[in-house]
């Protein structure tokens, strides 16, 4: 008799194992595992079936007409759609792996609320450390001289008695060591299955620095003159009107900092990042899946993610980065943008000082619109290049496409001609810097720019106009906590 395929029993076993892991090791999120590795199921399935067919061919058995039946394909298509959904959800949102704990404790039971309150004088306190494992916290600096905590503990448990026992184990504590005041919700003391979290509203004096630690929950800090340091596995972070910031998140739906008087350092992974009106240097090492926005950064910014790197000396306008595009308007160089492996279209306008661009894939559109021109060195391996040069500026242009159409709409004194399987547009107008742009494959257009905004929004040159870019610092010197 022909043996039936091993696939069906293996799938049944796999489903059982997944549920077992989910129940025995709740800290491993099965959903996250599925979201991360589901395509391997397809690969494994195909591999097993291949081996089976080769085996029966060798044994001289009758081969099935089709290696994978129609019903199986239907299931595969369903799995692919479902899998793409989970991976997309894993990328985009804080996939609440534990909230979907199927057949675990968390689907059952009820939530019980307990009020939280604490207050302590903050005389001589320079730093406040908040340790809240789960839950959201809002910290607001004010004129008072005390630390006031209000909020509630939320406990999800099977019955009230268990919830009360858990609540009794985790009293809110405000304790002081030297000039540091610790606020702890002590959720780690409860080892049961119940889910605990605390929602906190904290009022504090303005002139302190703050350190927030947590595993899951948002931090919202406003109105503090000191440094803010956030470290969380999964947090939305919103900071406004603070001294300086250091943020480290393993996962985040949004990180936003506005009106910061000192440096900002962001590390980790997340969806969106938004920095606005920052007076100090900005260092970002962030794998993002959503949008990044940088507006009004007075000091240099060093940005790095898994595929791209960017450095600018000052952003007066806005730089926006999405999954497919980088748009920058009104910034000061020397600037450098490098994108590897991913495809990104670049649109840069109204910039001064030198610019360096290196793309693997993506279009480049440059409209410097500022005088005097500075050196530009831009290349893409695949993508269209559009260059809009100011008509009165002095520069020496050399623009090439190795393969693609080319069009000189700037006209004289620039000349164009074929080269390779593409073309070259070159020429010199007056005395000016070298402008080199090239694409290996894609169209090339040089325009005469019309909207010359140099007279409308003059930019004060940075103190060291053509200083070379300093290397990207690994970490910023940590802000002294006084």
């Amino acid at each position, binding site marked *: 008799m022909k043996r039936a395929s091993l696939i069906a029993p293996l799938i049944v076993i796999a489903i059982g194992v997944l549920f077992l892991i989910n129940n025995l090791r709740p800290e491993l999120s099965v959903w996250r595992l599925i979201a*991360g590795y*589901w*395509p*391997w*199921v*397809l*690969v*494994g*399935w*195909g*591999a097993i*079936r*291949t081996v089976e*067919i*080769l085996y029966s*061919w*060798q044994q*001289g058995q*009758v*081969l*099935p*007409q*089709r*290696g*994978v*039946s129609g019903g*199986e*394909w239907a299931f*595969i298509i369903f799995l*692919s759609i479902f*899998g*793409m959904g989970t*991976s997309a959800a894993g990328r985009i949102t804080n996939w609440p792996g534990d909230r979907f704990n199927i057949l675990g404790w968390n689907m059952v039971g009820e939530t019980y609320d307990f009020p939280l309150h604490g207050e302590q004088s903050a005389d001589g306190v320079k730093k406040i450390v908040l340790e809240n494992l789960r839950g959201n916290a809002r910290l607001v600096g004010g004129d008072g001289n005390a630390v006031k905590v209000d909020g509630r503990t939320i406990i999800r448990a099977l019955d009230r008695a268990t919830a009360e026992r858990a609540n009794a184990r985790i009293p809110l504590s405000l304790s002081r060591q030297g000039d540091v005041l610790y606020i702890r919700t002590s959720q780690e003391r409860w080892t049961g299955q119940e889910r605990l979290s605390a929602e906190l509203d904290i009022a504090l004096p303005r002139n302190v620095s703050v350190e927030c630690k947590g595993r899951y929950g948002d931090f919202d800090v406003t109105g503090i003159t000191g440094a803010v340091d956030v470290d969380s596995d999964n947090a939305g972070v919103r900071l406004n009107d603070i001294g300086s910031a250091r943020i480290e998140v393993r996962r985040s739906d949004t990180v936003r900092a506005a009106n910061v008087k000192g440096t900002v350092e962001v590390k980790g992974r997340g969806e969106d990042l938004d920095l606005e009106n920052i007076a100090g240097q900005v260092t970002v090492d962030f794998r993002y899946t959503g949008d990044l926005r940088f507006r009004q950064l007075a000091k240099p910014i060093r940005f790095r993610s*898994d*595929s791209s790197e960017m450095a600018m000396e000052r952003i007066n306008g806005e730089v926006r980065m999405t999954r497919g595009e980088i748009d920058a308007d009104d910034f000061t160089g020397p600037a450098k943008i490098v994108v590897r*492996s*991913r495809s990104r279209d670049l649109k840069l306008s109204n910039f001064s000082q030198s610019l360096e661009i290196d793309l693997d894939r993506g279009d480049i559109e440059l409209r410097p619109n500022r005088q005097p021109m500075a050196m530009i060195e831009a290349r893409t391996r695949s993508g269209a290049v559009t260059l809009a040069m100011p008509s009165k500026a002095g520069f020496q242009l050399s623009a090439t496409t190795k393969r693609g159409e080319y069009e000189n709409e700037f006209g004289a004194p620039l000349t164009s001609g074929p080269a390779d399987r593409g073309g070259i547009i070159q020429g010199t107008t007056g005395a000016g810097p070298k402008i080199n742009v090239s694409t290996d494959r894609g169209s090339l257009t040089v325009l005469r720019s019309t909207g010359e905004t140099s007279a409308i929004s003059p930019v004060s040159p940075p103190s060291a106009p053509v200083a070379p870019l300093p290397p990207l610092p690994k970490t910023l010197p940590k802000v002294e906590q006084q």
Partner: protein
Amino acid sequence: MNQANLFGALRGPVLLIALGVLFVIDQNGGFSFASTWPALIIVFGLFKLLESLAIKNPVGGAQ
């Protein structure tokens, strides 16, 4: 039983592996599935080609 049958039977599983690999590439930040799916058509075509070649030259055959 000849090679044409073998290629016909292997087509599905190999397509499945290719599908999985494309999704793995997509997930790990390489090319997105939206741009790589034509590879599946190529694999399908290759197998069709091998099948028809195998029918014209029935080498191998039953062993």
